[in-house]
């Protein structure tokens, strides 16, 4: 198993309810989630805004520390691991961000951006590794000399992907990475991700609000609603036979590009 997650809870202080004195009351965002993520799986995490899907992703990468429960990453408990120890482990789990414009430093060239994490982890042969990453995401090597603003949205997102895979991680979290893209670049990025998962043997968690995109890419799906897992299973089972009322409601609300879909 890549991940074994048991009774995961995470809460934040609710500053809107804080009294003048004393600590703010805590609001629980993840309310006891348990699931396993097998190696090589592509897990779709879906839910409405505020359902906790991004928070779950960030907890899996230990960008956030759970308040209760446990997270096992490839058999190692990382629930409360210190930041120093985590730093070395982070090579094994990487993240691709939603907005490639704000997650790429505008003052650095693409080559430098991709090399950043490699340097951090003390790798050698930087140029060769950057070139290899660019090859894998289908960008010309000459792009290493360009700045992010010179690229289109889809190309920028490929740079984000190249940066994540350059370290050859075991697991990647992709948080809403195609929601800002047009359908044509979206299709390209999804096709690319699928190819990379196959070629590099990646395990992927794909956070999205778009069930159509999830069906396209994912092997398993987890539906979150108000911080609780309402349904989890294989993609085929979930789409062909959704059990939870919330999943059914979500599916029924998606407007398909088909004038004959009963929707009203």
């Amino acid at each position: 198993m890549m991940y074994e997650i048991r009774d995961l809870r995470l809460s934040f202080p609710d500053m809107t309810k804080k009294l003048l004195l004393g600590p703010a009351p805590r609001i629980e965002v993840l309310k006891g989630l348990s699931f396993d993520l097998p190696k090589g799986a592509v897990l779709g995490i879906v839910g409405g805004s505020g359902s906790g899907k991004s928070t779950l992703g960030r907890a899996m990468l230990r960008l956030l520390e759970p308040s209760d429960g446990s997270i096992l990453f490839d058999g190692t408990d990382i629930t409360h691991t210190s930041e120093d120890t985590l730093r070395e482990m982070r090579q094994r789990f990487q993240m691709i961000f939603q907005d490639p414009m704000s997650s790429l430093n505008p003052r650095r060239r693409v080559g430098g951006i991709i090399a950043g994490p490699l340097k951090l982890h003390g790798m050698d042969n930087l140029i060769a590794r950057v070139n290899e990453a660019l090859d894998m995401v289908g960008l010309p090597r000459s792009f290493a000399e360009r700045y992010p603003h010179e690229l289109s949205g889809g190309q920028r997102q490929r740079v984000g992907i190249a940066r994540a895979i350059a370290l050859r991680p075991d697991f990647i979290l992709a948080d809403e990475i195609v929601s800002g893209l047009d359908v044509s670049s979206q299709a390209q990025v999804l096709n690319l991700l699928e190819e990379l998962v196959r070629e590099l043997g990646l395990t992927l968690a794909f956070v999205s609000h778009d069930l159509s995109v999830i069906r396209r890419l994912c092997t398993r799906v987890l539906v979150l609603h108000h911080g609780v897992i309402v349904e989890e299973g294989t993609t085929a089972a979930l789409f062909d036979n959704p059990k939870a009322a919330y999943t059914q409601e979500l599916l029924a609300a998606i407007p398909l590009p088909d004038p004959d879909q009963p929707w009203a």
Partner: protein
Amino acid sequence: MTSFLQIKNLNVRLKAGIPILRSVSLNVTAGQVHGLVGESGAGKSMIGKAVLGTLPRALQVTSGEIWLDGVNLNTLPAAQRRKVIGAKAALIPQDPLTALNPSKRIGPQITRRLVDILGWQKSAAEARAIELLGEVHIPDPKRVMQSYPHELSGGMRQRILIASAFAAEPKLIIADEPTTALDVTVQKQILRLIAEMQQRHNTALLFVTHDLGVVSKTCDTLSVLYAGKVIEDARMRRFFTRPIHPYSAALLAATPTYTDPTGSLTPVSQAVIDATEQEVREHDMRAGL
């Protein structure tokens, strides 16, 4: 049929000369929903902005006519044009968070249009606003009139903007990606509400969206834009069953649907893009650009 909005050969350019809209023509009648679809940068929002006179400063209309409810906007002096637009057209914006003033209560934000543009009495305007909030299914309209935007959910705020858009009984509503910021379940409610209001008030609706799924649920007709040029005009059903332009067909093939278990997606091919670009160049040659 009365044409509430007629655009003839509209050209918009960056002041530096780069074309943004290329000879766009379209026609929307009472009770009709016309979609503007295309990828980002295709100019779909700019058409709405040109009609409302809210183009960014760097852009200017270089030629073409915009007729709003039988009035040629180009022939009017600026002040009068603003008055006509204010009375006859309204916008449902994309982001319900930024479109409302966070420091003002909801009530005055809805009544302002009635008081400022139509010269209504404040009390009459307030009564009308409460009535409108009821029409968009907001429970307890009187309380909401006194609320601040931050006290309301995204869906509620979008309902308020819809009420506000219909307040002065405009002939034309321009909805610019009105549900992009919302969850799918809320999106469904909001799209239904827009359709309901549009039919009740018999307005013409110009619907800007990049989501072909949304188009198939809302529009009667649509224009597909590429680089500021309308490359296909179609009735909605015909567009989805028999798209004529290769770029339209490519857009459809690139749109994921959860009902397709194979889920194969075909990105828009370079050949299609090249051919469409060529068309745009030929248009520019003819137009002497």
